[in-house]
């Protein structure tokens, strides 16, 4: 580096003298200046302490002896004193460097920003975003109009008959024909679930999500929801993984890293696994329940209740301190179309390439299972549980799908519903259960990596029976009350 005298922040007397005596004692290599190592030691940086202990065997004791003396000279933690000095230095530098033209006119953006964080208007705006963004665009347009078109016209009238025709002429064996175009066929089940049901829903969700995230709404939502989240041991910081969870729970579980404490990360991971439906699942459920306002309200109510209740209990049961919350609130911006499209495209591409092979494997697996009778055995195990919560036995196949992927399970429900096999109270019960039910394989994999094997297994062992228990309760309550949906 060139020999220009670099900027130095001077601290208060006792701190400065501690810094110079610690610096003199340091012999090791840290990749940063000795002065910085000393500063971090004064601020009780655990990582640096460990490194110093490793590298400075004899001097470590003497260094340690310096610390309490400095600390006792101040009424505040040293971190605070040091940060204040630094801030003062920054302010001094900036005084002569920055000029601000007074612009008292805050404008519309500022007004809107405040309205988004105000408890009253904020809730109204939130409902507006949910209604138009999620319900109308993803649920009604994506999962309704688009899915109808692609499923019944593109696949139903064009692709499936065409492929069946080809299969019938060139494949002589029924069994092999079934692999491609049968009940669990690669084309008729795998490809059509992935393209006809999942793709339009996830696509519309990603468009909305990209617009919302680019506008700067999410941090404001975090501010708004912070208070509610405090009650379940989380802070507003958890809003981002939660909202992302509505896109893909797997991705959201990775993003829990932004949270401050281990406790917060565990609670968020649990709630993501249990009560946050991913976009594909959400879209399908909105689509099959949207015909009836009551069914949809019951589903929303039960899931919200479970979310809050489990969060609350978990925050009491898992030891540790409550989180503090501080988040940058970036300015509101009009999203750039090109950025929204690029993001939607890259997410869709990721999603699709992850999902498609999976759906195809699942088709093969199910076809094999059907052929060998294993499928019947497994569904017969699931059947009593499914029947116990008031569902028709055929629904057990959808739950089996759900083991593979959340969206696959929901797509199974969609099929049963359109076939008329699942309506009314059982439909709501099935929707509730499959939403709560088991995280998909990918999510489980990420949970293992991020939270460790014990926590991941504990969460799964809790989620599985809990989902059915809630389904059972909902069924019991609705049938006892004689609710007809």
């Amino acid at each position, binding site marked *: *580096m*060139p020999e220009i005298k*670099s*900027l*130095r922040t001077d601290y208060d007397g006792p701190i400065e003298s501690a810094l110079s005596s610690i610096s003199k004692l340091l012999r090791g290599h*840290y*990749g*940063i*200046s000795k002065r*910085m190592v000393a*500063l*971090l030691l004064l601020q009780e940086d655990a*990582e640096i302490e460990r490194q110093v202990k490793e590298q400075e065997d004899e001097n470590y004791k003497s260094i340690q002896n310096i610390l309490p003396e400095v600390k006792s000279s101040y009424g505040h933690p040293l971190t605070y004193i040091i*940060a204040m000095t*630094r*801030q003062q*230095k*920054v*302010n001094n*530098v*900036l005084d*002569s*460097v*920055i*000029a*601000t*033209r*007074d*612009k008292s006119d805050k404008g519309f953006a500022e007004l809107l920003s405040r309205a988004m964080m105000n408890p009253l208007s904020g809730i109204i705006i939130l409902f507006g975003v949910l209604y138009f963004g999620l319900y109308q665009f993803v649920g009604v347009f994506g999962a309704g109009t688009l899915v109808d078109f692609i499923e019944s016209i593109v696949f139903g009238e064009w692709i499936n008959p065409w492929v069946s025709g080809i299969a019938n002429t060139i494949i002589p064996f029924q069994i092999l024909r079934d692999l491609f175009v049968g009940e669990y066929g690669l084309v008729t089940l795998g490809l059509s679930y992935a393209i006809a049901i999942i793709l339009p829903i996830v696509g519309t969700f990603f468009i909305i999500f990209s617009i919302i*995230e*680019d506008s*700067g709404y*999410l*941090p404001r939502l975090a501010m708004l929801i912070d208070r509610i989240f405090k009650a379940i041991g989380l802070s507003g910081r958890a809003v*981002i993984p939660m909202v992302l969870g509505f896109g893909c729970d*797997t*991705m959201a579980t*990775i*993003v829990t*890293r*932004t949270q*401050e404490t281990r406790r917060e990360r565990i609670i968020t991971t649990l709630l993501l696994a249990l009560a946050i439906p991913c976009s594909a699942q959400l879209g399908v459920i909105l689509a099959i329940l949207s015909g009836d306002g009551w069914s949809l309200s019951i589903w929303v109510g039960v899931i919200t209740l479970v979310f809050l209740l489990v969060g609350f209990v978990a925050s009491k049961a898992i030891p540790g301190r409550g989180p503090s919350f501080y*988040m*940058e609130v*970036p*300015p509101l911006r009009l999203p*750039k179309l090109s*950025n929204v499209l*690029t*993001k939607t495209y*890259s*997410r869709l*591409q*990721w999603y699709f*390439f*992850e999902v498609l092979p999976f759906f195809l494997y699942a088709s093969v697996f199910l076809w094999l299972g059907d052929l060998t009778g294993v499928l019947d055995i497994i569904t017969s195990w699931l059947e009593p549980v499914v029947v116990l919560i008031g569902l028709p036995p055929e629904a057990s196949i959808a739950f089996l799908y759900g083991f593979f992927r959340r969206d696959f399970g929901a797509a199974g429900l969609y099929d049963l519903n359109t076939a008329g096999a699942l309506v009314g109270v059982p439909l709501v019960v099935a929707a509730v259960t499959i939403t709560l039910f088991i995280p998909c394989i990918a999510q489980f*994999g*990420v949970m*293992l*990596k991020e939270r460790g094997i014990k926590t991941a297994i504990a969460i799964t062992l809790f989620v599985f029976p809990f989902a059915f228990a809630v389904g059972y309760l909902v069924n019991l309550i609705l049938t006892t009350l004689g609710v007809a949906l």
Partner: protein
Amino acid sequence: MVSWRKIINTISLGASGDGCHEKVKLTDRDGLRKIGIVGNPNVGKSVIFNNLTGAHVTVSNYPGTTVDVARGKAKIEGSEFEVVDTPGMYSFLPITEEERVARLLLLTEKPEVILHVVDTRNLERMLPLTLQLIEAGLPVILNLNMMDETESAGVTVDIDKLEKELTVPIVPTVATSGRGMDALRKRIIEYARN
């Protein structure tokens, strides 16, 4: 960002039991010289990264999109660099896991140039980290990003004066539109040559 592609890797890595993803990789992969990008969350680090490397990592308008370390290559005036985008950090004294990852990266990988990206509208909250990077004796270039929003907020910055005060090179940019990126590349290569 988390690039969604990276998640696939994460998932497949998870399946193969490869645990190296968690830790910052310590090896110089190609022995390339490195440029480390650091700064508070949501100041445009990932846009700068995309701009330097020509990659497409996800960029969002909220803090904490980058929870992982993104890597790419940049060619500046014929020299190749490895560019490393870090998760956001507020201070050199880490509180969250992402901040720990960001600092560990600076300590272990020793980038030739550390690009501190800041939101110019909030210099008084951004510069304490610059001060700390200077105190740590690291090779810092300060990048005043979001100059357009700063200007429209009615704030002007005397860049020459700030450069003298801080004793580090300063480059103003509007990364989203590419303004100032050529000057930034130039300063990086000058700095790396010294």
